[in-house]
Structure formats: structure tokens, C-alpha cells
């Protein structure tokens, strides 16, 4: 099995591909994503119909896990779930109380939101809703089952570009909320373009301080965010240790 296929796009062969992957999933030791589960690999508008001229109701960001309900000539009708601050229905986040942004929703998308449950975050006393959004169309080329490649690229770009002026920061040194702001201020000193920064942001957010890999399983073929144990060293000295 090719572990690092560049990108497995949706297509007319959806059913066949799904079948094949299910079969592979049964054979492979690592759990495979369910057949209808995809992630965005490009930012895209949320279209009201499967055509480029259709009105749009918001935008999806990168690395957003979603389900494909049906496909139609290069378009996919999708469903996604996420979290929102009760008084800020414009923004959809991946996790409760954590600002890993997945979508920005216009009024026409907000109207379609279905609230699944409501919780109050104990630290901030803010009220968060678990919501579902279904029925919008996105171009199939914005979706992939496999995020391993862009993820590995993001990791490599981070390590190369963010260790030129200072020591490379452990991703767990900042929280998922802090990382976008930290990158916003620091990446002006790097050659990274906007898309690269967006991928690095997502990569770091999913590896950030306080992100529990059990509660935030990475979608689309990725291994859990943790553990980040240091590799074994030859003869570690007595009294040495790592954070």
C-alpha cells in the first residue's frame, strides 16, 4: 500500500474507491477512515448548488474533516460538524472551546445550522454549541482522503523556516489559540506564502499544548497528534530529563 500517495481525489469512482479503501482498511493495521470521510485540501466557498455560478454561503478552511453525502459531476455535497460560540455564529471551530477555525459562515449558512448540544466552557464561562451543517456543495478537487502529504510538507516547512533565527519551538509550547497569532507576527520574517502559513497553522494547532489526541483525533489518514516522546538516546546521563 502506498503510504504517501499525493492526493486521492474524489471522483466518479467514489463507490469503487470507497470499497477498495474499506478492503485495505480491513487488511491494514492502522485504522482507515470511513468511506465518506474527507478533508479539505484547499480553501473553498460553500456553494448552494453544484455549479461554480451558484450563490455561496461562506468559506471552508484547510484540513476540515467532513462527510460526502453525494457527488455530482465534480461536485460533492457535504456535511460537517463543529463548535461555535453561542453568540458568534459566523465562525465554526473544530473543537469545543478551542479556536481551530474550520469555516466562516454567511447568514444563509447560519440559518441552516442544526444545534446538537450546548455546553458551558468551565474556564471561560463561554457557551459553546455543537452544530451540524449539511447540504452545501464544494468542488471535489478541494477534498482528499489523505492529509499525510500536506501535513508532512507543513511540518518540514515549519522546521526549516522557523529555526533560522531562533531555536525551533516545540509545537506544544503554545496553545491552539495562540499559534495563529504567533505565526501572524513571526511569518513576516520568513519566505512562507499564505497557503503555507495556513497549513503550518493547522499542523501546529493540532499538535499544540493542551490538545488531547484522544479528543482531537486527526482526520484523513493522519496519526494522532501525540505522543511527542523524544527519541531514545544513547546512554542518557543520570539526572537528565526532558519536559
Amino acid at each position: 500500500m502506498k503510504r504517501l500517495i499525493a492526493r486521492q481525489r474524489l471522483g466518479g469512482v467514489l463507490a469503487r474507491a470507497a470499497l477498495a479503501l474499506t478492503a485495505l482498511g480491513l487488511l491494514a493495521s492502522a485504522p482507515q477512515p470511513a468511506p465518506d470521510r474527507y478533508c479539505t485540501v484547499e480553501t473553498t466557498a460553500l456553494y448552494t448548488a453544484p455549479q461554480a455560478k451558484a450563490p455561496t454561503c461562506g468559506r471552508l478552511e484547510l484540513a476540515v474533516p467532513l462527510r460526502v453525502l453525494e457527488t455530482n459531476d465534480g461536485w460533492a455535497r457535504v456535511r460537517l460538524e463543529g463548535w461555535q460560540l453561542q453568540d458568534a455564529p459566523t465562525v465554526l471551530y473544530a473543537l469545543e472551546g478551542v479556536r481551530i477555525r474550520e469555516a466562516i459562515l454567511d447568514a444563509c449558512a447560519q440559518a441552516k445550522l442544526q444545534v446538537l448540544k450546548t455546553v458551558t466552557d468551565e474556564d471561560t464561562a463561554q457557551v459553546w454549541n455543537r452544530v451540524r451543517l449539511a447540504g452545501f456543495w464544494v468542488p471535489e478537487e478541494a477534498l482528499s482522503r489523505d492529509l499525510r502529504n500536506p501535513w508532512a510538507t507543513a511540518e518540514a516547512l515549519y522546521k526549516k523556516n522557523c529555526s533560522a533565527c531562533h531555536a525551533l519551538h516545540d509545537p506544544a509550547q503554545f496553545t491552539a489559540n495562540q499559534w495563529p497569532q504567533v505565526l501572524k507576527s513571526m511569518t513576516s520574517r520568513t519566505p512562507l506564502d499564505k497557503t503555507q502559513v495556513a497549513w503550518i497553522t493547522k499542523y501546529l494547532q493540532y499538535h499544540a499544548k493542551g490538545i488531547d489526541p484522544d479528543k482531537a483525533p486527526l482526520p484523513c489518514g493522519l496519526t494522532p497528534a501525540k505522543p511527542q516522546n523524544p527519541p531514545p538516546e544513547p546512554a542518557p546521563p543520570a539526572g537528565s530529563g526532558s519536559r
Partner: protein
Amino acid sequence: MGSKHRKGMERRTFLKTVLGAGAAGLVAPALLGSRASAQTAPAANAAARYARALDWAGPLTPSTRLTASHWGAFLAQVEDGKLVGVKPFGGDRAPVPMLQALPGRVYARSRIQYPMVREGFLKKGAKSDRGMRGAERFVRVSWDDALDLVAGELARVKANYGNASIFAGSLDWHSVGKLHNAPTLLRRMLGLFGGYTDNTGDFSVQAAMTILPHVTGNIEVYDQQTAWPTIIENTDLIVLFGADLMKNNQIGWTPPDHYAYPALAAVKERGIEVISIDPRLTDTARYLGADWVALRPNTDVALMLAIAHTLYTEKLHDEAFLKRYTVGFDRFLDYLLGRSDGQPKTPEWAAKITEVPAATIRDLARRMARGRTLLMGGWAIQRQDHGEQAPWMLVTLAAMLGQIGLPGGGFGFSYHYASGGAPAANAPVLSGISAGENPVKTAIPFAHGVSDLLLNPGKTVDYNGEKVTYPDVKLVYWAGGNPFSHQMDKNRLIRAWQRPEVTIVHDIFWTSSAKFADIVLPVTTTLERNDIDNMSEYTNQYILAMHKAVDPLFEARSDFEIFAELSDRLGFGEKFTEGKDEMGWIRSFYEEARKQAKAMKLAMPDFDTFWETGYVAFPVPESAKRYVRYGDFRKDPDLNPLGTPSGKIEIYSRTIEKFGYDDCPPHPTWLEPAEWLGGAKAKRYPLHLVSPHPKYRLHSQLDNTWIRDWYEVHEREPVWIHPDDARARGIAHGDVVRIFNDRGALLAGAYVTDRVRRGVIAVHEGAWYDPDEPGKPGALCKHGNVNTVTMDKGTSKLAQGNVANTVLVEIEKHTGPVPRVTAFEPPAQG
């Protein structure tokens, strides 16, 4: 004490003094625009600016090569293979005089000429007497032998103790350039070697950059600030908290373009009100005619609390802003009003702590609330005990004023650094050589931790909600830095430095760090090698070629060359160089930028043309001049939340509450520093010592040039002392004095001036260490390195930053013969 300096200002400004002859930077009104002309001027001026960039003596030739430094970019003039002069790059808006010290620096007597090994170490290796470090003579060895020795020591230590026992020093100021970045090259090599113990954080800004992500979700200190043209158009009042823009903007991590100077000229021209809260009358305060509020050092938080108290009780604060954009003000209010601790933070309360009269404090609050107010935080206020609190309180004060996100209002922590607030160009950015990943994950908060690390293997310290356990360091490798200058409490460092089995230092000069090393490798100055860089940190307006101007002196080699050779010996030479030599790397950085430029639809010439021309210039878009920090947050806090847990400004932090640190409470709090004028220790040591950044050096860089003749007093680093304090001790202007406390002592030259308040003395950091008994803990520094008396303590369990400005001392007139200064002489060699 508030005292007006506005009226009496001389027209012969500090700016002109700084600029010296041939200054090209005084074009402020035209460049930045007054309120009236701001709409029309900038575009036309862009063209003029590029024309000016070309304004140098003809094309580049072998005798005029362009290169760059932390002080600016310049043309190096070469005659008969020798550097004879420098001429500022035309794109520098206010060239600084320190540039002129560079030719002398190349030929300084303190240059390390050959690879050198401490005699005892050469004979006995790891079993040598480590107490002889800093005292013993050095022996010249060949490059081959030196490199074999270093590679052998690395391999031995790795095999015996593991990679975590190798400490890679800190990321100090080295020299500019995207390739010849010594600390990064060191880490690149050690990363390929299996890893090393690294530092984390930032010596300059550790407390601020650790607390502020909990407050605004961002590090703030290196962020794009509200642009100067916007400030000049909109701001009514600038309040400086320990920030000296005139002095500190001279230097930059990348070659600076000194944008801040015409901006400050425009501030002056427009008559924007300025208040400087500082124990010193700074150059900035003098130049801008600021009102000087000379508080006691380390009491900024108490002063700000009382200002906040006045704002609240006089209903001058912005309730609506606090409600929409912040959390936790109610919890903070309980403290402010004394409901939680029984002590209302009134101006009368603060007057006792700060010695600023209550009436002045009330007046400050009212003035801040009157118009558009911008609070500029320097970094001195966080290099003190509990240094997390002042930046937090400054943000809280700005939140109460309610102008965060409005043009010219709010706060900023980078206006004194690298011309923060300069509008950014639309330009590609050069990458650079990178360290890559470190397989060893141990990183210590080093801003105070180097001695602590070396002295206490196995010790666990708190750090920002984590625990860090120190490894047992056996080998210290330092390149591009000078820990014996910057680390607090030098005598503790000398004892700590005796612990590792081997210490290796790359340096250009016989700095004290080189003198304390076992193995010393001589490196080239920037002028002896090729490189490339962006100019400047916040504007990115130019890509500069950095041409080699002269051949390497003596046997000096570049850090890149040295680490490449070592990598070869350690078996990963190809991975280190990636098959590229010096020019290969420079070319690749340029080509990468060219690709970006193409995507941005910007023209860049091919590499060879660029290398011949020397620079590429990029346009600054109009929008960059209108940039308002937190403008987007203010406009739509839901869509643009901050990086805090609540997405808002956290005046009370649940995260910090959960850390449960006794020395960093969950809201801004006045905490007594370990040493201050209001404390018990002041009876024994009645003077508070501050150690600001120097005016004519970059830390310790340039002290070994003729430029020190400009500031030294009796060949020593000057100490600013108030006339009353001098008189009480029988000290006259120009006397050699001894500054001391329980930690150590230094000699300095008395500079009697009322530019520093009573009870406070100031010694700029970075004078070269010059012990009367080399290598010995407790030796007297004959020349004036201030860190012989500073305290090596963390700001708190949160940040573990250094507390450079929390120091009490006594001072006396030096009696007996004045010892000769030997700081700049090479050690005994055989």
C-alpha cells in the same frame, strides 16, 4: 517628579547629533506627512527614496563593496586590500555613527589570530584543572589539530554522556547575514550530530513574551505595530514606559533602515505630547521635550495601578470596551479597589511606593483619558523581578482607556526596537540557513538559566505551566555570543563555568567568553565573507548583497566553513552543506526569494545582476502606512478573536490561576521586588542600579573600538549618578568609583548628572569584563561590566526571565592606584 522639559529644548537636536555629518535622514515631514499633506505625499516620495538609495559613489567596484551590519548597510571602501572607510547605504534614513567604528573593529588588537587551546586542556583534556579557565595561557595549534580536537571532544562526550549533555549556548546577536549565522550553524551541526540541550525563550523579552500570550494571545514584542504615519496623524499623547526610542532604534537584528528617526522628527514637528516614565531622562525624552516622570525603578506596576484607580473612580474608563473586548475586569477591580486585599490602589498608596506625587498620578490619568493615547512599553520594565506584571498591567491600562484598535491609540511593545511601526513593504523575504530539528527535546528557559543549569544538574524548575529538568551538561559550545558579558551575576557564572568538562567558543575577538574557553576558534568579521540579507526587520524594503570586502585576517575562518569541516569529520558533511558552498547558499536564498517575487508580481533581476548592483528595492503599499494594530479585532472580535482561551484580552487569566504560582498571580498585581529602594535591603545598599542598553555599542559589540573614547570616563564605563548622591559620597564628576554589593564589584567612571533621579545609578550593560584576578570568582572588574553585581534570579515561575534591573548597590570613590584596563588585550599566549 514631573518636570517640564518641553519649553527649554535646544533646537540643535539629539537627532542631528546622532546623525553626524552627511546625514541624509532628515526628510521627516515630507516622508511621513503632516496631517495636511499625508494623503498626497507618500507615493511621490517613494520614487525619490529609490533615487536616494542610488546616491553613492558610482557603481560597485572591488574598492567599493556593499555590505551590512546590525548598525546599518554601508559601502566598504578598500585601498590596497585594506578597509579604509565606510559610507552609509542610501536607503538608510538616518545612518548612525557606530558604523564608522567598523573599519577599526576589523583590525582591532583584540582579534583572535589562530586556533588556540588553553594550555592545561591541551595537556590533560577533560581532566584539566577547570579552575584555571580564564586565568591560564593559551597555546596556538593548527586548524587541523583544532578541528580534530573539537570533533574528538564532541564524540567523546556524546559516547560517554549522551547528546543532552551538550549545551549549545544561546542565540546571541552574532553578525547579520542569512548564511553566516553562527548560533544557527552551530545548532544545524549539533542537530545532525544527534542533538543538544537548547535554550528556549528570549533573553531580551522573556517575561513579556511569556505573559502576553496569556493576555492578548500574542507575543507582542516582535509584532507589526500601528504604523508611524497613522500615529503621526492621529495620536495626541504618547506615554513611554521605560522606552528609549532614540537610543535603541539604532540597531537591528537584520540591517536597520532607521525609519524611526524621521518618524520621531515628525512627532516632534507635529508637537505630539510625550510623557516619559523612567528613572532616567532618556535621549528620547530630551529630544521630544517629554514630561519626565522619574519614578523609583521597578515600581511601574504600582504607578499604573494608581492611574487605573483614578480612571475608574473618576469614570474615565471605557466600560463598553471592557465589556466587549476583555474578560476578568471585575476580578481585577476587586483588587484595584482593595476589596480582595484591603488596600485600594489609590494615588496616595502608589505615591509612597513610586515617589511620584499623588497629584501627578491623577494628572497622568486625566491626560491619558483626554485624547488619543498610545502607550509604548519598553522592555526594561519586564527585565526586573516579577517582570511579567508590568506588560500585563500596561495592556490592562490601555484596555481601560478603550483605544486598542483605534488609529494611533492602544499600546505597543516594539516601537523602540528595529523601528517597529515602520510600514512593511510588499516584498519577498529571504530564507536563510536553518538549524532544523533537534532530536533532544530538552530546552531550558535560559534568560537566567545558564548558571543555574550548569550548577544544578537534575534540578527541576517551573516554567509557564511546565516542569523543566536540567540535564548534566559536560560540554558547552558557544558561537556568535558572549555569555560572560550578558549573563547576570558573573561570579556565579564563573563558578558554574568550571563545571563542564570542556568549553568551546568561536569568536572574532578575545572577549571574556573566549578567554574562559578551553578551545577557541577564530572567525571572520562580516567584511571578510560574502552573505545576503533583508533590510530592515519590519519593512523588508531591500534585499542587500553583502560583499566580502577584504581577505580574512590571520587564520580566521567563517563559522560556516568551520562547522562544515567539523561536520565532515563527524561524518555528515554533505548533509550539513547540502552540497553548496558560500556563494551556492547565497544564490539559493536569492532564487527562492525571486520565486516568491514572481508570484507577487514583483520584478527581481537575475542573481548575477543583483550581485553586481548590490540591492533590490521593493515598494511600500499605502495600506501598510494605515496599519492599525488590533484594528481587525476591534472591528469584528468574533471573526478575529485573540489567541487567548476567551478570544479576548484577559485581564484575569484562568490559565495562570491554574498554574498556582505564588510569584505570578492571575491578574496584574504589584509585588515587591527582591531588591528595591522601598525594601529592607536598601538600608545596606541604598542605590538602585539600572543597566540600560548602551548608546554607542550593541551590547558588548564595538566596545573594543575607538568609539569607546566617546563615552568612557577615565577609561572605564561611565556610571550616571545624581549630583546629590555623588556629593553625599564625596564623588566628583570624572572620579573612578567602585560599585559593589554582596555579589561583586566593578570600577566605573563617575558621570554626575541630573538625568538620573536621586537614589538611582545607571551603568550601561556591555562593557568588556576585565577582572583584576582573572578566572577567580569575586574578582573586581576594573573596566565596568555591570553584571558583576546583578542578580541571577527568574522573574517568576511563569517566565523565568532575567531581572537585570532589580539590583541594589553602594558606590564609593576608588582610593589607591587606579588599575590599568586590560579588557582588550589578548591573553598570554605561547
